[in-house]
């Protein structure tokens, strides 16, 4: 049984398209990445899963249950961390967490304290006095304190420093090992690669590819830029080089495959500078379109 199943899910905002005929299946125990550029429909999909908005057509099942009928019931087992965090400003952190707890019929105090300790969150402060990063931590704790079976993360790392990000990822991995399914939306490829088993790529409201993360890693493109004088085109006549362009300063190209042959080829010539980058998501998508 899939934890998340969507069937031809379509959402129009008036005339403008949110997502179209989206079919998604997330299995129990997965860490499922959902990646795409801004405006591709990631948030629309997530808001549909949570019944914050309602579909124009199509259907969503969570834990095998139609959310139209069983919305509140299925949400008992969901933890959601939105990308932008806004809470009742006048409340203290602890009051917000207690309010959050009051929706679940169980005692979450212990888990709440644990999570706050891990995330180094001060429970006594007023929410309006918190920095963006600290608000994000409140979001993490309120989303996880009831030990949900499905965790939905919408671009969760913005505002967290690298150390906290690491702690947060560890936390997510632990929850996953305990059996939770994770749905992780992001536009940062590195995050997805670090955490997920499987990934769906969304663009212009449709899923263009669902792949194992391994496949995506094998398709690991590098963007290479070589700066030098009198460079010859033949040097770059190597398997895996694509989109070779000659510029005033040298060459630009994408490279896919074992990194050693290209390094070797470059080491034979005299260059002034070299720049090896991860391609942006857009550039990876371009490859998917080829």
């Amino acid at each position, binding site marked *: 049984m899939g934890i998340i199943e969507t069937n031809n899910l379509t959402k129009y*905002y008036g005339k403008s398209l949110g997502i179209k005929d989206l079919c998604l299946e997330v299995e129990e125990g997965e860490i499922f990445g959902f990646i795409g550029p801004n405006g591709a429909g990631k*948030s629309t999909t997530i*808001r549909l899963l*949570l*019944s*914050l*908005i*309602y579909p124009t057509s199509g259907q969503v099942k969570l834990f095998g249950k139609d959310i139209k009928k069983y*919305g*509140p*019931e299925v*949400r*008992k087992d*969901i933890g*959601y961390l*939105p*990308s*932008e965090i*806004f*809470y*009742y*400003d*006048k409340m203290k952190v602890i009051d917000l967490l207690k*309010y*959050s707890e*009051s*929706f*679940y019929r169980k005692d979450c105090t212990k888990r709440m304290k644990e999570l706050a300790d891990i995330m180094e969150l001060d429970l006594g402060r007023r929410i309006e006095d918190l920095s963006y990063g600290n608000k994000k931590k409140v979001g993490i704790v*309120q989303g996880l304190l009831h030990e949900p079976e499905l965790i939905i993360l919408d671009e969760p790392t913005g505002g967290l420093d690298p150390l906290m990000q690491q702690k947060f990822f560890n936390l997510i991995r632990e929850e996953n090992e305990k059996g939770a399914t994770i749905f992780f939306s992001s536009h940062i490829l590195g995050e997805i690669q670090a955490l997920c088993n499987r990934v769906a790529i969304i663009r212009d409201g449709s899923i263009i590819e669902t792949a194992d993360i391994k496949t995506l890693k094998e398709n690991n493109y590098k963007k290479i830029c070589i700066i030098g004088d009198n460079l010859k085109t033949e040097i770059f006549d190597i398997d895996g080089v694509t989109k070779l362009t000659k510029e005033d300063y040298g060459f630009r190209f994408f490279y896919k495959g074992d990194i050693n042959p290209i390094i070797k080829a470059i080491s034979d010539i005299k260059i002034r500078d070299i720049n090896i980058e991860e391609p942006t998501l857009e550039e990876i998508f371009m490859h998917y379109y080829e």
Partner: protein
Amino acid sequence: MNVFKQEFHMKIKSIIIWSISLAALMIFYMSFFPYMEQDSETLDSIMNSFPKEMMQALGVRAGLSLGSLMGFFTLTFTIMQIAIAIQSANYGFSILSEEERELTADFLMTKPVSRKKIYLSKFFAALLGLLITFLAVGIGSLIALKLFNGGSNYEVSHVFKLLISVPLFQLTFLSIGMFISLLFKKIRSVLSLSMSLAIGLYVISSVGEIIDSDILRYMTPFHYFEAGVILKTGEYDIQLFLIAVSVIIVSLVSSYLLYNRRDIHSL
């Protein structure tokens, strides 16, 4: 209960401030009555020299003189009604729109709670707040009449009848506010909207009196709960009350339906 408690908690300051201010204002205004009464003859002659329409616009129309206790109380109570209408409309506009405006809806609505429960919790929290204000105004009015009646007799039963109509009056504005708030994608300024609604409808009722137009009168809740008429006759106009009740039911049912299928947008 948790959503109800949270909503009530968020409103409690506003409820206390409104309740205390309105009760105090009532007593303050009525404390002028003994002086007015002393000069009631002069006052009446001044009043009579004003055009009849102007008096009607002020709410002094049911043949009550400003120099009489009930006449003066009518004027005061009409001012209270405008304030109560502003407060009720304010709660109506805010309860269903505030979470969306402050973007806390993403928190609340992703919890295991139905829209129906949120709607009802918020509605009853606002209603409880308004009933507290109603009690404050009621007690304030009774105290004011006791302290500053200037020796005049008055029909306590008529005053009670007027006071008991207040919750229905509040509900009318609360439900209209809730309904209107759901017609908009985002409500930015709750206060200015509620003042426009309350004062606008009051002006319509005044104009309705001045030009003697039934259409205008039926358009505004101020006419359904006219203080002067109830104080003088001690009777409710059942037909008008039924209109008010229908307005309430239609507003509440349609706002419930709209809220249930409303899309909650992010930033």
